[in-house]
């Protein structure tokens, strides 16, 4: 198993989780899989970070959890986005985009004459 390629920026994991959960209620395993799939194996979230993060977000009221039957028929804990969580996600996305734009502008700026 390759080591995670990139150290996640602090606070980014929360945003990614919120984004994944926004697609629909999902359980922890699903979230981990999706994170990997969506990012083309770029992010590999360790369970040691994922579950504390999920519980933290639930504690803050951004996620809500529910025990439901999963696709395999076993009961699993499904997380879904709360209204507060969605607001938080939108705010964070906007913030992230602004940051990207700014960095992009900076990088695209004409370099020094050479």
């Amino acid at each position, binding site marked *: *198993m390759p080591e995670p390629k990139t150290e996640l920026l602090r606070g980014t994991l929360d945003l990614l989780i919120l984004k994944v959960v926004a697609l629909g209620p999902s*359980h*922890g*395993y699903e979230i*981990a899989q999706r994170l990997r799939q969506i990012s083309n194996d770029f992010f590999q979230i*360790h*369970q*040691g970070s994922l*579950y*504390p993060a999920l*519980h*933290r977000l639930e*504690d803050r009221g951004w996620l809500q959890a529910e*025990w439901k039957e*999963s696709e*395999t028929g*076993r*009961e*699993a*804990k499904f997380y879904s986005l709360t209204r507060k969580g969605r607001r938080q996600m939108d705010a964070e996305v906007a913030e992230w985009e602004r940051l990207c734009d700014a960095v992009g502008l900076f990088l695209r700026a004409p370099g020094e004459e050479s």
Partner: protein
Amino acid sequence: MTWIRRALHKSQAEKSLDKELQFHLDRQIADYIAAGMPPEEARRRARLEFGGLDRVKEEVRDTRWEMHLDNLFRDFRYAFRGIKRDRRFAFIAILALALGIGASTVAFSAFYNLLFSAFAAKDANRLVVFSLQNAEKGVLPELNLTPLGGSLSDVDAIRSQSQVFEEIVGYHRGITLLRDGNDIHQVYTTSVTSNAFDFYGVPPLLGRGITPADGMAKSSTVFVMSYKTWKGEFHSDPAILGKSFLVDDTPRTLIGIMPPRFQAYGALVQIWTPITGSSDTNGANPAMSVDTMMARLKPGVTLETASADLDVIVKSLAKNHQNNFPKHFSARVLSATDFMMGPYGIGSAGGPETQHFDIKRMLYALLAGAIILLLIACSNVANLLLARATVREKEIAVRTALGATRSRLIQQLIVESFTLASGACVLGCIFAYGGMKGVTALIPAKGASIGGEAVVGLDWRILLFALVVTALTTILCGLAPALHTVRRDLQPSLAGSDRAANATFRRGRLRAGIVIGEVALCILLLTGAGLMMRSFFLLTHIDLGFNMDHLLFVAFDNPHGEGDGPGQAAIYLQKIVERLKALPGVSDVAINNSLPGYNPGVRHEVSVPGSSYVERVGMDGCSEKSPSGSGLAVDKWELAHRGRRHRSSSSRGDQSNHGSALFRWRGSSGPAIHGQSDGNKRPRTPGRGLSSNWRSPRCEGFWSTGSGDPDGLRSTHCDRRPAWWRRRPVYKDKSGSGVADACGEGRGLDVRSRSNLFPAIWSLRGHLLLAHVLCA
């Protein structure tokens, strides 16, 4: 072993977490198998990837507050177990802390209730009392600060001219007889301007208070009684409301009983009467005067501003009545608390036995002492905990190795000290409850100069203080072992070796620091306490220079102006002496102008003619018999006697030489000297050194006797009275004739007959008041 079962029983949240993580793991394994991995390999791989299940759980737990609560709960349980296991330690630690917390709670209660909640009045923190500072040279400033008295027109003038006072009231205190049929009660009384009860704003318990309407009448016919008097002397009988009593030979109706927490205008007051013809009324009698004025500052006005304002007004008033004011003075306001309990303490009880103490400073000292005691207890317990931490080093090392973080360890230690401190808090509050009973019992009921309104007891503020102290104690005690724990090297303790010399050294420094601090505090406290006890011992064992056994002290006033005018005083006093002498059981009577040894008059400079040596002394006017009447020991009496003889032989024909003086001189071997008091520029022939042991608590004194009349009554120096006598409004005592006290000697009386003596004395006349047993 229920705790084990409880520990094994997992909470709902824990179960749910287990299930969630297990689900994840199983799915991973299933996926790997589906991808074609052999089941065994799949399981291994999934587990490897997942990492330590317990570590993940621990991290998840840390994100949830329930878990913190759970941890806290566990720590408490653990702490209790620790206490149970080591009961001796817990007992000592809790007892030590409880003493500290209890003592500081009692001290704080006294401090808070006396200094910050002393008055039941509304807006009590804005109450001030007017005072007059005599700025003339040669007098101690604190002895020369007197309440500002004046006529009612003065009160009105200040009220109309000042900008800083919301309202002003005036009052004067006295002692009178309250007659109820055949019962006679001697009571402290205060006459108040009729706005005084509205000013104070405390509703009466029964009936009504004094209202402005009561001041309108030509003569006042009502009075209000204090709760203590009502309860103590009238057995809380509600039927006495509306009854008529003879107060100072005037019939008055009792209109109200005040609640327990109302002791306005004098800490000992038992009844209040209105001054008739108060301000703003047609029947005003502007000549009526008061001996104290109290006011409420407007919000936001400082004492300095008010003092400046008052000074201007009073100085302009003084121009019209120069006789009533010292040559140089300044008027200022004192906060009511300072007036009652501050360094000047001039407002205290009111009465001949008034003494002032600087209660304020005393309370600060008490609080400081209690806090030092608490600190000592804390450092003691910290040391015990530290010693215990050393023993527990291994346990803590194991916990650390198992992954306990520093914050968890510190939390646990703090919880342990908090458990001890809480136990101590409960016990301390019980101590405090008992202690406060003791403190309240120590406050003398009579002659107390402590605010009569203050209630020293436990209320929510005091309990809050105890809680805050407990929290501080927790931190103080828990900090040392916690620091010790987290700074330590893990390995040697785990190994159980004694290689930890280095660690021991560091720990040794911490412990030594605590011990040094503790010993220093102990010495501080013990020295202070020792000095205080020594002073207390000296005060209680002071040699007054005379035998106080079977000595009664009777103070009396002259409300009817009898004996006024030149030459009348001696006759009047003589009459009183005769009547006192006639009482059964009285063997001798002498006149003294104050309680012997207390309140000596203004300081005089005494010099010996032909010598440059000058000594300042206080002067106490008395009849010649006074020293013997006071039961002076024989040798001293001899000296006194000789002094008198000396005078007798020399003064008869020589008009310039009136009066003799009995000196307390330095050492008993002082020569017979001629002294001169320049207080009233009268040369005096001295007695010999009276007694080397004579020590007045306030200042060294000498007795002065008059001449010309056989008992020396004429020139008892009433003109040199303490200011509160002089400014008394009802008695015209400019000639100094009106007030004097008598010392009577009743040798051979038993206590019962002595108490029978009081009614006999009271029945002499309404103006013979306050029979007081001097050191029974």
